[in-house]
């Protein structure tokens, strides 16, 4: 297995992340006939035998034209892929278990369009895209995030069978991309440990319009209850209502306060869930991990910092 993998690395020139923009030079685009292409070749062979047997001169001409078509297809398919420029685009953090979307920008320098190009990560769903002439097209390539931490998606396979499905051209690229994967929030956690802080009497639930303090842009982790649906109905961007009522309070999320029987990942899962809840309720919160302490705060930035700390815990 090791030998096969290293042979493949050598054959396809896979030497780890590459510097953008990655240009698909002719040396890294591979072509082979597809199953349909092999069937086509077999059909031509049979036709050739028929033409020889019945001395069909015009039959020879037809078969040779079709054989030429096969060779031309090879070049057309190759041409459809070669010289595409690829650079990484936007990548949003996700929670473990969710689908991460890796933005890729594909630049087509040519005056002709390129069609039906499929891209996928190993184990990810394929995205099919057409590239208009002399433009850059952005796509999002999905891959399931399995574990928290920095996720490297590995190599992207670009392949195309355009125009005649007889030939497959493909190439591997490994753009320098990584996606931050937050721990997966625990599904049914104990309530927020408000009393554990010891500083205040407890949190009020964020319900009630009298405590409405304003709107901010929606984050994926926000509770749907706090989405400003009226604004959405007016076709404005998704906003989240924020509440900072008089009794808004603080919560201190401490690794060491968790039950001792809990393993590392379980602790991280619970802390993640609590962070999200605290954020959704508009509380001020801080996070204490072994070797890392994030002071009290609130807002999107605070949430991001805390989640990142959880994601990278132990790295």
């Amino acid at each position, binding site marked *: 297995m090791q030998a096969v993998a290293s042979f493949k690395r050598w054959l396809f020139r896979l030497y780890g992340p590459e510097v953008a923009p990655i240009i698909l030079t002719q040396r890294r685009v591979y072509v082979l006939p597809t199953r349909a292409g092999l069937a086509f070749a077999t059909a031509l062979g049979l036709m050739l035998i028929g033409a*020889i047997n*019945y001395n069909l001169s015009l039959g020879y001409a*037809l078969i040779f034209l079709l*054989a*030429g078509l096969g060779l031309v297809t090879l070049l057309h398919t190759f041409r459809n892929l070669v010289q595409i420029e690829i650079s990484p685009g936007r990548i949003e953090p996700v929670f473990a278990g969710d689908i991460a979307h890796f933005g890729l920008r594909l630049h087509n320098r040519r005056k002709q369009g390129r069609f039906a190009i499929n891209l996928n990560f190993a184990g990810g769903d394929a995205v099919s895209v057409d590239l208009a002439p002399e433009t850059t097209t952005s796509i999002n390539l999905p891959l399931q995030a399995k574990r928290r931490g920095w996720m490297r998606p590995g190599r992207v396979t670009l392949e195309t069978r355009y125009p005649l499905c007889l030939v497959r051209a493909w190439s591997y690229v490994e753009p320098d991309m990584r996606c931050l994967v937050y721990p997966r929030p625990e599904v049914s956690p104990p309530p927020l440990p408000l009393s554990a802080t010891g500083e205040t009497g407890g949190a009020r639930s964020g319900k009630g319009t009298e405590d409405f303090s304003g709107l901010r842009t929606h984050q994926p982790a926000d509770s749907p209850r706090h989405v400003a649906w009226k604004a959405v109905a007016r076709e404005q961007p998704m906003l989240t209502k924020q509440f900072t009522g008089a009794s808004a309070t603080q919560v201190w999320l401490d690794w060491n306060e968790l039950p001792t029987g809990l393993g590392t990942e379980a602790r991280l899962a619970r802390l993640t869930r609590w962070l999200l809840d605290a954020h959704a309720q508009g509380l001020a919160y801080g996070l204490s991990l072994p070797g890392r302490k994030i002071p009290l705060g609130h807002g999107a930035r605070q949430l991001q910092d805390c989640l990142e700390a959880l994601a990278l815990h132990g790295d």
Partner: protein
Amino acid sequence: MATKRESPTLARSQELWLLISALLTLIPDVEHVPAWLTTAVAVAIAWRVSIWWRRAALPPRWLLSVLVAAGSAGVFLTYRHFFGKDPGIALLILFLALKLLEMRQVRDGLAVIFLCYFLLLTHFLNAQGLDIAGLSLAALVVITAALASLGHAAQPVVAHLRLSALMLAQAAPFMLVLFLLFPRVQGPLWGMPADAYSGMSGLSDNMSPGSISNLSLSGEIAFRVRFDGEVPPKYLLYWRGPVLRLFDGRTWRSGAQMEKVSPPDTATGETVRYAVTIEPHNKHWLFALEMPVAPPTGAIVSREYQVLSKTPVRSRLRYEMQSRPDSLPGMDESEASLRNNLNLPANNPRTRALAEQWQHEAGDPEATIRRMLDHFRKENYFYTLTPPLLGENSIDQFMFETRRGFCEHYASAFVFAMRAAGIPARVVTGYQGGERNPVDGYLIVRQSDAHAWAEVWLESKGWVRVDPTAAVAPNRIEAGLASAVPAGEPLPFLVRSDLSWLRQLRFRWEAVTNTWNQWVLGYDPVRQREVLARLGMREPDWKAMTAAMAVLCGLLLLGLTVWALHKRVRTDPTVRDWNNLSRKLSRIGLARQDWEGPADYAQRVALARPELSGPLRAITELYIDLRYGKLSGKMPRQKLREMIAELKIAKV
């Protein structure tokens, strides 16, 4: 690496492409398959089109299985077997029609496409003319466009067609190279089924009243001749075919043929050299001017001076011949052979009596011959394509009652009378005359030129040709059939002499067809060697051909690769003008750096040369607006160019 994936479902546009491809492919087959199959296929396609139109569901699989079984049974009942050309084509057509009815996924579409390609090939079993070639090319473009639509459905119809035409045009050079250099093998690779050569017309090895006049109704081409020098005069153009010496009172037949061992010519004389391209007739004989000197390769000359191919002529064949019109053949004829040419059945008593009387009165054979020809000339005989039917004693009936006949009647009566008079004689069939095509210089001989004449043996001269038709209708020999038969006879349309513009058109078309036949259809192993030797290949064996083929294909592929990698990056004219500005300023050491934006650049230049700052700011603002802003159009671009051109830079 190749992950198995579910084949995508066909889009409606793809289905339509496939239906049109199948229809185009099947149309030329209509005249060659049994009527029930045509009907069944038409119904199947109409059904499929209606399903497409109504967006209905396809028929269930079991129903299709039943239809496949029923159709195959129908093919078997029609042909009594499954092997061979016709049942094979019928089955392919059936499968294509039924595949259309279970066409769901792209994979099925590919199967339909491949079947269409295959069926295109089978068209050539029936005809390989320019017309079918053109039709097939059109079908090929559409089928390939359908294949392209399978690769990418969401493109307009025109784009698929254009792509298909482009790809086929790029494939054409490969076709040319492969066609020229692919080492040809003379088929067949295996024994041909009996039905492979049905439907070929031409002379047969027997002759009864009416057989040649029937053949004369066809304007089809029998063979074409290219002479090395001048075309000999028409009265010498006797193309010798089957020689008939056995007679039963009604039908003349040829006897067993023996190869002539001794040299066939007995006299010196001018030798005529020519090449004949004969249409397939599924018989052994080849046609040559009287008398053939030496056989072409793969053929013999028989003792009766017939040129016989060792295999039946089943495809168009080209052979080189030499003939000597003035030779005296058969001086060495044996007694036994001469006796064979005197045998007569015991019928037609009146003709026999008349001939014996002539022989008695005239005394020597040549006078007897003259007497007979005079009889034809002076008595009330008619030359006609539509002679009355004759009964048992056909010669007596013709000589004394009807007196209307075509060449076979005259030849038959003449040979009968000569044998009755004790002169060895036999019937020779073949073609007489031909028409020179002024466009390419080929002599075209048609079925309507079929003819029968006589040969008599004289002690001093050997076998001498006597054409009794010439006595009745001299025009037949001098000017051809059209001028010899009375007006109103059912001549083949194209043989008529009165439509000169049509003849011109026909000459042109036939010259094109001939070129096609000679160079495309007639490109066999022999021709291939000839052509390659002429192109300078020293030893055109299969190794050299394969090597040349590989090299040329490689070069073509290389050319295509260059095309595929060719980057045509067109610079925006605005950017070009901006670069011109930088070039201009580089003369005073102020070229733009790669990392410098327009505003920064302008600022740097203005600092260095304050006197330029005014015009430079205007230029930069216009450039930024054109390149990054909303400004566009010809006028501002023109203005930018002018401003840059007018910028005066003084050297310090």
